[in-house]
């Protein structure tokens, strides 16, 4: 059993890992070392870290196209993640998935997903499997406030509640759906109401407050493990880096993103401030943790750069089991 201090250290470390990972990903992308598209989780770290720290290793998650943060928070190795971004054979998907398809089945991570909302039903299926086997596991599906308008959300919400599946719907309300503000698309912007017709609870939480997220997720996980069914968590946050790397962001209100990077709003700076105020960690401790995270990401980048490409015959491998 880890102490609160250990938990907080792990949380701030993971948040820095995610922040540095995304900075490195952006750098690789701008240097044309990555292909396709990549979607950064910068500024939303508290959601993944807060939720995943309430889970056991064998609990399930499904992630999104903006998935690096969930992956790290669920225990993935940043080296193999970074190698995947560069399409290398040592990557999680042997270079065949890329940024949008990292999965780590050994840690219950059923994968990022290139289809918006595509993971919602899959997580409910994992929750069904847990209930079927009575193994006490829970499943979490992370998705955004764009995905919450997909039909599969409503279909899954109904079945998850009907069958009392051990499932957390975690909506990361980062305020954007691709290249639009999501508030253009809600007939009713109160997303917590989306659980009401399906008869399960919803909690709205400050998604940039890692402890608030953690505590809310804990309640939902407990409810799930008790067999009481799903919970919807609306975690309010902000998408700092745009939809993809290279997004011109000309649709965004000027000065808005900067407000979310202040000591009052940035989830990492806020948590650091709280930790020092509570005398849990000193400024020196925090600096050490930050540097460790930065070093691990630098090592991950080196590992990725030095790793070989897949051999061509891998093209035909693993189409079928």
């Amino acid at each position, binding site marked *: 059993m880890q102490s609160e201090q250990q938990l907080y250290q792990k949380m701030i470390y993971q948040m820095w890992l995610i922040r540095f990972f995304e900075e490195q990903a952006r750098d690789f992308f701008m240097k044309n070392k990555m292909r396709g598209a990549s979607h950064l989780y910068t500024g939303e770290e508290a959601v993944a870290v807060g939720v995943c720290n309430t889970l056991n290793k064998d609990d399930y998650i499904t992630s999104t196209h903006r998935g690096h943060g969930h992956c790290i928070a669920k225990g993935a190795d940043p080296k193999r993640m970074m190698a995947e971004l560069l399409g290398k054979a040592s990557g999680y*998907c042997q270079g065949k998935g890329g940024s949008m398809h990292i999965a780590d089945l050994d840690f219950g991570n059923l994968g990022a997903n290139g289809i918006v909302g595509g993971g919602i039903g899959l997580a409910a299926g994992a929750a069904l499997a847990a209930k079927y086997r009575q193994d006490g596991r829970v499943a979490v599906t992370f998705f955004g406030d764009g995905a919450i308008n997909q039909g599969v959300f409503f279909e899954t919400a109904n*079945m998850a509640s009907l069958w009392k599946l051990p499932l957390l719907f975690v909506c990361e309300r980062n305020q954007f759906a691709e290249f639009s503000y999501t508030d253009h698309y809600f007939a009713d912007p109160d997303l917590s109401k989306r659980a009401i017709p399906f008869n399960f609870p919803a909690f709205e939480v400050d998604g940039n407050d890692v402890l608030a997220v953690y505590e809310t997720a804990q309640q939902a996980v407990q409810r799930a493990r008790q067999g009481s069914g799903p919970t919807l968590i609306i975690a309010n946050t902000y998408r700092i880096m745009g939809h993809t790397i290279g997004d011109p962001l000309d649709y965004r209100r000027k000065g808005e993103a900067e407000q979310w990077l202040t000591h009052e709003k940035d989830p990492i700076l806020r948590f650091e401030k709280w930790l020092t105020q509570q005398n849990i960690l000193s400024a020196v401790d925090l600096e050490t943790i930050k540097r460790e995270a930065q070093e691990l990401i630098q090592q991950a980048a080196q590992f990725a750069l030095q790793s070989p490409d897949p051999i061509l015959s891998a093209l035909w491998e693993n189409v079928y*089991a």
Partner: protein
Amino acid sequence: MHKEERVSERICEYREALNQALLEEMERDPAVFIMGEDVGRYGGVLKVSKGIYEKFGAMRAIDTPISENGFTSIGVGAALAGLRPVVELMYIDFACLAMDPIVNQAAKARYMFGGKAKVPIVFRTQGGGGRGNAAQHSQSLEAWFAHVPGLIVIQPSTPKDAKGLLKAAIRNDNPVVFIEHKLLYNTTGPLPEEEYVIPIGKADIKRSGSDLTIIASSYMVLQSLAAAEKLAVEGIQAEVLDLRTLKPLDMETIAASVTKTRRLLVVNEGARTCGYAAEVVTRVYEELFDELDAPIRRLTAEDVPIPYNGALEDRALPNENSIFQAALSFFR
């Protein structure tokens, strides 16, 4: 006394053969379960899952709301998490509502996750026309699924094949689209009494002949066999090759047959353009051109939505008579 060494068989309906496959596999492996609309308490709209709810209970015979995208996704997620779901899509037309979990998720997970995931799921569904169900309940969409890398596609024509292939599909670690035909459920045929499994990817010669090969699957096999009887009266011996598995395609059995008969007619109930017949024709031209004595012919549905009116529907789909005429035209 011991003269009759042959396997003991009994006559059985296609529907019952499928039912037996489900019951046996669920008995054998506790990870196997069924889910879909009315598959539990009601026993399935075509009674394929009759008795399963009573025997295995609600957790292994899951009645779902009419939410094809949702429950198919849930099935795929359960497969990723280690179970072996058999998801029923009541009509193949309804699979249109579940294309994301089938095509984007189930078919891709293993490859795009670098070989670590397994998706052992069967999508049991039912297609084809001939019963006046009109445009949204009569399609033959097998070519769509056969087009997707990562999926296996099966279309059994007899009770024996239906049972043996469904058992193989359930035991397979890949997503399988298992397509039954609405006009086959009441058909009967011999079923071995002892347990058996039919390997995926093996075609079957349903009738031997020397003059031409007719390649078909599903209900079109029955129509081709009937046409072959008429051709025999004309002195033409048609070989009827039942594909059974559309993906992967058994080119070995096709090559042996075409090399023998040197003439090929491909029959498929799907629409003509980009249909499954086009794939078979192309493969034979690419690999066996020198074995052919005549251009290949293909017989498919017309490029129209399936109409309701009986005479119009008859004209839209291949049948015994059009197969007979197409085969005869090689020789006249």
